[in-house]
């Protein structure tokens, strides 16, 4: 009997021992669940506390312009690097260290990383001090706060430029003796005539005047574009009140504004007769009619593809019908350009003869030379436009200079230079000038732009040139 009691007591003790063991193991198991994974040293990331009471001053991206001299400026990267040991020593007080462990990729939020992220665009060279950009998207300093953006590219907009020069829209053409038509805002065009053969003594090729340069023919030339970086900004505003935030919602989630707009669009007006019936109006508008005729994802059966679709274009047909016109357009008139790959043959010079005439090398760069064949009796006026600055803020003055050069070998007369000021530029009165004797006038163009005109009083001899200038205010 006593042995039985002892056996039961022993069994109870063993049972309680089992219970205690289970409890202890459960606590150990549960506590292990809350322990983070062992961190990998290369991926340890220092997070700064989000509390405003313990702000950090280590990485700087916001820059104030103030009255302090620039010499006192401390490079943020140096400051960051210098503060890293301090960060490690003061981790226990104001900062929280989260060992991120195996978390990749990096979140799209700024973090101060001691080591480059695997998904970032920057890598390390020469330790953690030098952050080198592979893609060039981020610089030495900006790399740090954004280094953990995997594959992120800075959204860029612009550049926003204002250009003056060229001949946009309808091509300019001479009108009358000194006029030029189709001049729109931003155009810079000059007209001129070669001096007749018998009236000049300086023409070196008066015995062989060119056919293309008839004395009665008026030639036009266009300047280059002069573009200036001048961004400008405006804004739109949205004001909402707490009681008016919700827009009126109709059936199918459409706002009432949308429905009202749809009703307006579905009442097309065709000429002088307005279709009153709603169904007729809907079928009269092609897009709505197709929408009603066809089921979803169907092809319009009435619009069968023609066998000539995509085979013959209108340009090809024009060329076939008018071969003489195409030949005349393609025929070289004054100059012919050739691209000669010098780099392939290591030739540093070239002498090209075309139809018994030598070609002149006018440009040679990167193994390619551009040759020009010049015929005697050539009349040519070259315009070159330059802006006084590459950049301009709104309200600043900007001056333009137009250089003229008689680049032909015949004298030019009746030269009229016209510059239609772009609408973003306001001409400063009486600012137009010229180093050649000229009549300067301003007028209003067909599109409302201010047209500045220089009518040169002098005949330009071959190789002779000059310049005109005017000032504007950028808007």
């Amino acid at each position, binding site marked *: 009997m006593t042995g039985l009691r002892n056996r039961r007591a022993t069994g109870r003790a063993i*049972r309680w021992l089992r*219970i205690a063991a*289970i*409890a202890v193991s*459960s*606590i150990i198991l*549960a*506590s*292990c*669940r*809350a322990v983070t994974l062992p961190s990998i040293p290369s991926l340890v990331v220092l*997070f700064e506390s*989000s509390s*405003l*009471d313990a*702000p950090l*001053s*280590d990485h*700087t*991206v*916001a*820059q*104030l*312009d*103030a009255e302090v001299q*620039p010499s006192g*400026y401390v*490079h*943020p990267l140096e400051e960051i690097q210098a503060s890293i040991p301090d960060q490690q020593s003061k981790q226990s007080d104001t900062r929280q260290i*989260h060992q*991120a462990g195996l*978390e990749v990729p990096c*979140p799209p*939020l700024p973090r101060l990383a001691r080591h480059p992220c695997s998904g970032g665009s920057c890598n390390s060279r020469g330790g953690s001090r030098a952050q080198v950009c592979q893609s060039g998207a*981020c610089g030495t300093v*900006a790399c740090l706060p954004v280094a953990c953006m995997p594959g992120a590219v*800075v*959204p*860029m907009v*612009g*550049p*926003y430029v*204002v250009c003056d020069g060229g001949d946009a829209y309808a091509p300019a053409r001479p009108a009358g003796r000194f006029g030029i038509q189709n001049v729109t805002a931003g155009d810079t065009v000059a007209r001129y005539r070669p001096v007749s053969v018998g009236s000049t003594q300086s023409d070196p090729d008066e015995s062989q005047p060119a056919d293309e340069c008839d004395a009665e023919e008026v030639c036009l030339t266009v300047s280059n574009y002069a573009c200036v*970086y001048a*961004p*400008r*900004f*405006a*804004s*739109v*505003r*949205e004001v909402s009140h707490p009681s008016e*935030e919700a827009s009126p919602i109709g059936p199918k989630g459409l*706002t009432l504004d949308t429905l009202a707009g749809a009703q307006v669009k579905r009442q097309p007006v065709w000429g002088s007769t307005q279709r009153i019936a709603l169904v007729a109006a809907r079928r009269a508008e092609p897009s709505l009619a197709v929408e009603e005729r066809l089921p979803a994802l169907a092809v319009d059966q009435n619009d069968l593809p023609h066998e000539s679709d995509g085979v013959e274009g209108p340009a090809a047909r024009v060329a076939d019908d008018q071969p003489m016109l195409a030949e005349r357009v393609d025929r070289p008139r004054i100059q012919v350009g050739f691209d000669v790959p010098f780099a392939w043959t290591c030739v540093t010079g070239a002498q090209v003869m075309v139809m018994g005439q030598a070609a002149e090398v006018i440009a040679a760069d990167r193994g390619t030379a551009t040759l020009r064949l010049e015929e005697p009796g050539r009349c040519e006026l070259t315009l070159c436009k330059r802006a006084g600055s590459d*950049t301009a*803020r*709104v309200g600043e003055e900007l001056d333009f200079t137009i250089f003229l050069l008689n680049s032909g070998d015949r004298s030019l007369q009746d030269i009229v230079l016209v510059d239609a000021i*772009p*609408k*973003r530029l306001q001409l400063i009165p009486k600012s137009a000038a010229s180093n050649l004797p000229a009549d300067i006038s301003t007028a209003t163009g067909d599109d409302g732009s201010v047209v500045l005109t220089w009518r040169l009083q002098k005949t330009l001899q071959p190789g002779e040139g000059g310049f005109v200038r005017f000032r504007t205010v950028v808007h």
Partner: protein
Amino acid sequence: MLRVATRVLATAVFALATSMGFAREAVEPNAVDSFASVTPLGAIGALQHPRPGSCPDDVLTGWIQPIDIRGPAGMEIAIETAEGWSPLRRAPLRIGLVVGRAYRLRIGGIAGHEGRELFPSVRVLAKLAAPPGMAWRFPVEIVIDESDLTAALAGSHVRRIVYASCESDRPDVLASNWFDVRPGDDCLDVASTLGDPVAEFIVGNRTPSPGSVP
């Protein structure tokens, strides 16, 4: 009976310990989401404190876009920095911000509302493709209208989208020119039709958390 009680007790201990583990895990915030879920608006920008002096060009590379904040006469402005609020100073304020981040501003000196302050936020949406070395000379110009401030003080929520105009044939595009979008329209969408949105300015009657403003 005792055996059943013992098993129930063991199960209870196990469940209690397990739930404690889950609770501890839930309390401890995930390191990845800590910024997004915990921080108030502008706290990210608060980690980045300003430096006095003209901004070197090499700093303005990459993700930093200068902005220029202007306002009505007498308006004072400050920005929340890592070291607290910068001192209030008369507008305009030219500052370089990281593209895509929201920064908190502090506006005082509102005419007719002396003593009252607003705490708007500003965010740069895109970086201007300025010529090299010209970024600081051509900041994004944000003009705060007086009606923005009065509307915000009256309890309205004002959102302003600044866009860079692409229209070269309109001479009347100015930073001070703006209009209100129709009710229900999104001003970001409207601005996208007029140009490239480059900055967002939001002001309302939101009061900062206690203790964040000295």
